[in-house]
């Protein structure tokens, strides 16, 4: 049993996340290795550091300079942000930055949890699969405090950090 794509999209739309792409996935409970937590922690840090290439999305988050630096240095994620696994660990998802995305904890990550929990026991589940590393709903990207000045400032800072770490 499973939700139809239309039903799944309707649920996402009701949670104001109608621009979130969904992929069908057949969950199979997987054993994970004993060292998963250390590897998960390291992958989170690598994922955060990889966000230097996501300046357009970061500009819409209206981060302070300190929050931005802490994020791209892999020290700390900004307030109300969560790092999620695209394919959950316990369903065979790889512990890798490529299997992660970031979104707001409230309401988005909490809503995604509800969406997945609501499909418990189904043979095929629909999983959110944002196209970028950071999910920001389209309806929140139309204005606000972001904009070119913020984007330019963050791009400049990101370039400095990359250069300082020899990551180019």
């Amino acid at each position, binding site marked *: 049993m499973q939700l139809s794509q239309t039903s799944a999209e309707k649920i996402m739309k009701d949670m104001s996340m109608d621009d979130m792409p969904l992929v069908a996935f057949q969950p199979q409970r997987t054993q994970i290795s004993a060292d998963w937590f250390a590897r998960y922690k390291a992958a989170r*840090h690598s994922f955060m550091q990889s966000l230097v290439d996501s300046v357009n999305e970061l500009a819409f988050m209206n981060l302070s300079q300190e929050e931005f630096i802490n994020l791209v240095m892999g020290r700390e994620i900004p307030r109300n942000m969560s790092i999620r696994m695209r394919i959950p*660990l316990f369903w065979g998802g790889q512990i890798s930055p490529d299997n992660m995305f970031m979104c707001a904890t409230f309401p988005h990550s909490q809503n995604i949890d509800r969406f997945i929990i609501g499909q418990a026991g189904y043979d095929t589940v629909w999983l959110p699969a944002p196209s970028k590393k950071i999910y920001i709903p389209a309806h929140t990207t139309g204005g606000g405090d972001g904009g070119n000045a913020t984007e330019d400032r963050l791009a400049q800072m990101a370039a400095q950090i990359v250069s300082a770490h020899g990551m180019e």
Partner: protein
Amino acid sequence: MTREEFLSAMRARGAEIAPAAPRQNIATTNALLQGMRAAMMPITMTEFYAVVGGITNGSGYIFGPEEVQRNNIYPVPSIISINRDMSHIPAMHGKTIFGRNDLFFFAFDAFGTAYMLDNLTLRPLRKYDDIFRAMTDCLAAGKL
């Protein structure tokens, strides 16, 4: 672990602690939880909420009786709001979710036992006799 030991450890980690809710709100919260077939608060939790309205440590959260407002940031939902959304799930009957981080939910039952739950299926993964130990695990994973 005592409440004071727990709070002291959380303050040392830089957690944000919300002010306590009025006693009346705690009683109302308890009645609402009962109405949605979740667990009523054990005495440890009612006493905890008399001094703390919720805790945030990175992406680790302990939900309180009231929504926690944050400047220019989406508020932290109340424990009622979180559990209302889950009240139709049979696995949650008799349990109340009181915390979350990026990997797990945390719940208590009316007897004061706490559980770490799989955030995909709400299946219990770990059981705690000490609710403050469960809160510590929940919040510690908020800053990895």
